[in-house]
């Protein structure tokens, strides 16, 4: 098994209580600066202690993740992460210019000597508001953009593109990706439609903001459809994202987690006004399992043990965490854990990262 450290770049300062989009009436530039410095420090450490990947995400108007363009953050990562792969999870390609995305991935792949993982995601529903894209076009735009980006990476002669959503007269990107034919591609696969698409298009699958039972079901769906399409995904084709915290003992880990959750404030979610959420659901953004998934993503409460049982949190001593990981490996079939460090930032998070590298990673390599 492999592990990624997810650089959430979560703004730790005070945030005005609000639905999304969150206003910037309460804001500290100094805190935002420190957020990036802290994230880079964690990433540097994770790289040193043996994490296989460092990952970053794209979110908009969101204090819990202040990397609206993760490519910019990844540019900084190329200068501190010397060994691990850098995974962009994602680019939200349906709301972006796909040629620009192809160029940015290729630049980063060149700057890292071929250590880029190209996540291509649909983004969260609210993000269709960000760049004023109709969420009902999400899947069709995704499929077209993915085909276009792959061709932009591999076609040696300039070509134009006459698509449904994208039109270009000449594409000939410089630089080219180092990896041949291109960096490995992953997409988010919680819904049945996404799993089927990933299977048909032979790309990897990532699970985030889900639970162990749901991911287990979705992963089986993906592997079944891949088999029908004539290939069998390996564990390396499946990413599972969750929070983690490793302390010396289970007792210490639990105590730290409780202390952290007691201080968690509101305003860090993607909660939308009810009318806006209904409009997005009505536009057909969600997949066939819409109701089930909307319930899951809004159910954030619950105690720490429930989070462990649900597979949304790894917490405890190295020995306990290894056993929790074994369950994810066996049930979901995931070979790559994308781990959100916690609790909070600071020394304890750094110690947890170091401990994971020293005592957990060597044990899960053989899983």
């Amino acid at each position, binding site marked *: 098994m492999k592990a990624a450290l997810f650089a959430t770049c979560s703004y730790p300062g005070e945030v005005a209580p609000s639905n999304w989009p969150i206003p910037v009436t309460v804001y500290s530039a100094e805190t935002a600066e420190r957020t990036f410095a802290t994230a880079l420090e964690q990433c540097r450490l994770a790289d040193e202690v043996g994490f296989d990947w460092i990952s970053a995400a794209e979110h908009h108007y969101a204090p819990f993740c202040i990397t609206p363009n993760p490519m910019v953050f990844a540019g900084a990562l190329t200068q501190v992460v010397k060994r691990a792969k850098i995974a962009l999870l994602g680019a939200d390609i349906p709301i972006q210019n796909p040629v620009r995305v192809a160029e940015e991935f290729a630049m980063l792949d060149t700057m890292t000597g071929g250590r880029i993982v190209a996540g291509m995601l649909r983004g969260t529903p609210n993000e269709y508001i960000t760049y004023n894209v109709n969420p009902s076009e999400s899947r069709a735009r995704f499929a077209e953009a993915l085909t276009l980006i792959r061709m932009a990476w591999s076609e040696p*002669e300039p*070509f134009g593109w*006459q698509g449904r959503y994208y039109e270009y007269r000449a594409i000939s990107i410089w630089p080219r990706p180092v990896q041949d034919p291109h960096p490995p591609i992953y997409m988010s696969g919680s819904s049945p439609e996404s799993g089927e698409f990933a299977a048909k298009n032979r790309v990897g699958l990532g699970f985030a903001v889900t639970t162990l039972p749901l991911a287990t079901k979705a992963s089986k769906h993906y592997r079944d459809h891949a088999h029908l399409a004539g290939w069998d995904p390996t564990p390396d084709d499946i990413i599972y994202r969750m929070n983690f915290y490793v302390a010396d003992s289970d007792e210490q880990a639990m105590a730290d987690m409780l202390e952290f959750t007691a201080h968690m404030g509101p305003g860090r979610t993607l909660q939308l006004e009810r009318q806006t959420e209904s409009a997005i659901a009505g536009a057909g953004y969600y997949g066939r399992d819409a109701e089930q998934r909307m319930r899951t993503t809004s159910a954030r409460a619950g105690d720490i043990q429930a989070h462990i049982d649900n597979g949304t949190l790894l917490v405890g001593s190295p020995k306990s965490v290894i056993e929790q990981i074994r369950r994810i490996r066996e049930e979901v079939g995931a070979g790559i854990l994308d781990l959100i460090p916690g609790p909070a930032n600071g020394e304890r998070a750094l110690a947890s990262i170091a401990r994971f590298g020293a005592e957990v990673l060597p044990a899960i390599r053989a899983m």
Partner: protein
Amino acid sequence: MASVAEADRPAEALLGFRENVVEADGFRIRYLEAGAGDAVVMLHSAIGLYVTEAHRLLSAKHRVILFEVPGFGRSPANERSQTMPDLARTMLAATDALGLKRFNVTGHSFGGRLALWMAIERPDAVASVSLIAAAVIPSGRPPPPATDPVMAKQMALLRRVMGGPGRDPVLEAEMKKLDVPVLALFGTNDEIIPPSHGREYRKLLKHCNVVMIYDAGHALDRDRPEALASVIADFVEKPDGFLVNRKDGAINP
């Protein structure tokens, strides 16, 4: 799709195209015509002549002429044309007979190869060439089966004029000299003529724009009619400034 290889049909079934016949080079050549403006001569594939929404859309902007190549469809078997240049000269006699001094030509699959030969034979008359999944470089795929007498007649002509299964060095040498702007279109899902052929065109032609039609198979005109008509119309309007977007981008001027 409205097939004109079958019985006579009213004009509506031909999507507004009118049927006519022109005498040229000893052949009676049937053609369909609609629209006004710059002439766009369109040559069909090995399947024969048919009309789609793509042709209708193009006719909204241009004078579109769809020829039935002698030996196809309702015309008698063509045992006279021996080579592609022979056929190209016959089609140029037809454009002459229609009084077309300068025109654009498009060709689908087999018709693409014929369109290139028309431009090679008469570069002064051909303003632009649009190749639609053209059969210029052999794909190694077997030709469509001769399922009925019409297809059998067409395939006999094709086997003779298209030559052997290898690349055509004479055509490729002529392509290198051609000074006419070419638009080479490929369907991203085409299993007969792969989009990678575009790379070869870029090496063989001086002025070649390659454009991928997303989510189209070999029948680009049926799979993505709006996309096909729009890109050809744009190329015909400004073959030299094709790369430059001149659409109004203002949302609320």
